[in-house]
């Protein structure tokens, strides 16, 4: 069969909402797009552990420590589901990790912002995880089977993340004047970067059109962003706080919240590596990997020993 014919059959499957599975024929570009997107998603989960991990020892109570620890552990699990999905496309785990460590692969820019107060942990759960959830709920219906299944698993676990974040802010918002100020300050700093998480405007997004035809994505960046603003603009009222946007207002006709212009200069700067913590994040990640070398070596030695012992016992018996 010619490539054109195969491509036609492939697109027919997509149009009929039949999922693509690892051993099915797929266009090279589809495979490449998925490897890029899924590994970026995985890296975001892994790097995303760092800004929150910084607060595990400083969380204000034992309860909050336990919750944060569980959340960060979930993120590691999400990274693993996604790395495994990448591997089904024929890319080795090592290659994927190497691309992260060498700086070749990207991850979500949001994690290049620092977590300066406890309020930031609340804002990350509410805003950053909130934005990620919208994206991941859409991706549960993505056309590639393993990626879809990974997202379904992730979404099941993720809703606690957003709720615990909102609860952190809720408690702060009902606290002392200083705690209230911490809450508002965290919202102020995380609001715009959260909007940037949905990526460039529709007209300027390079991969969007093809990804939509292949049903990798099912909603545009701007659609998801609008959905997010509508959701958060209502939720912030419960906190008695405000969003740092003078242009934010409800439009009765469109039933949407209109919002101000995003600072795209800042967005591209952080993407290109000049955010406040880009270097720090990669250094920490590499260091963690290097410091873990002895653990991996020990695990290998341990299973070699276990295998030898088994053989020994078999001989005796």
């Amino acid at each position, binding site marked *: 069969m010619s490539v054109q014919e195969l491509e036609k059959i492939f697109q027919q499957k997509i149009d009929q909402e039949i999922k693509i599975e690892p051993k099915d*024929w797929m266009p090279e570009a589809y495979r490449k797009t998925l490897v890029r997107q899924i590994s970026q998603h995985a890296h975001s989960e892994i790097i995303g552990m760092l800004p929150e991990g*910084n607060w595990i020892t400083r969380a204000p109570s034992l309860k909050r420590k336990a919750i944060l620890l569980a959340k960060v552990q979930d993120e590691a699990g999400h990274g693993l589901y996604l790395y*495994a999905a990448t591997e089904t496309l024929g890319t080795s*785990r090592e290659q994927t990790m190497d691309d992260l460590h060498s700086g070749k692969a990207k991850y979500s820019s949001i994690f290049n912002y620092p977590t300066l107060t406890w309020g930031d942990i609340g804002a990350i759960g509410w805003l950053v995880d909130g934005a990620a959830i919208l994206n991941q709920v859409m991706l549960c219906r993505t056309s590639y089977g393993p990626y879809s299944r990974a997202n379904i698993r992730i979404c099941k676990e993720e809703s606690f993340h957003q709720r615990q974040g909102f609860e952190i802010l809720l408690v702060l918002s009902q606290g002392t004047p200083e705690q209230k100020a911490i809450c508002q300050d965290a919202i102020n700093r995380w609001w715009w970067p959260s909007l940037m998480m949905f990526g460039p405007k529709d007209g300027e997004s390079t991969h969007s059109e093809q990804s939509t035809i292949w049903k990798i994505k099912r909603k545009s960046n701007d659609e998801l962003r609008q959905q997010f603003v509508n959701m958060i603009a209502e939720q912030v009222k419960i906190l008695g706080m405000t969003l740092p946007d003078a242009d934010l207002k409800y439009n009765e006709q469109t039933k949407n919240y209109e919002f101000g212009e995003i600072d795209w200069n800042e967005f591209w700067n952080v993407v290109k590596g000049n955010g406040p913590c880009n*270097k720090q994040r990669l250094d920490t990640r590499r*260091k963690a990997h*290097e410091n873990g070398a002895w653990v991996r070596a020990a695990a290998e030695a341990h299973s070699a020993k276990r295998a030898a012992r088994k053989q020994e016992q078999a001989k005796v018996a």
Partner: protein
Amino acid sequence: MNINITKYYYGDIPEEKGGGNTAKTESTANWPLWEVFIRSKQGLDHKHVGSLHATDAAMAIENARDVYTRRMEGISIWVVESKYIHASSPDDAAAFYEPANDKVYRHPTFYDLPDELKHM
């Protein structure tokens, strides 16, 4: 009222000037890939849930517990090294499943029986 919030840069801003550490990490031998199957409760089948890398079966089971049963999703785990799984080929699917295609009489709905007939 002017409120001062204390902000901590702990862990977030480089202590030294954050000079990128470019040392290449060592490449340990690739650990084998394992497919993980979980029984969610007694009476149900083990179901494929995903895969992971581990040095041996014991480690694969422990890792599967940590990754796939953090919320009591399982009471029993199977792991199989991925290389031992043999699969039918999607390219041959049409011919491979063809024998079942024309045997509608294997389905109960094939038989036209009177409505008065009960419990069948």
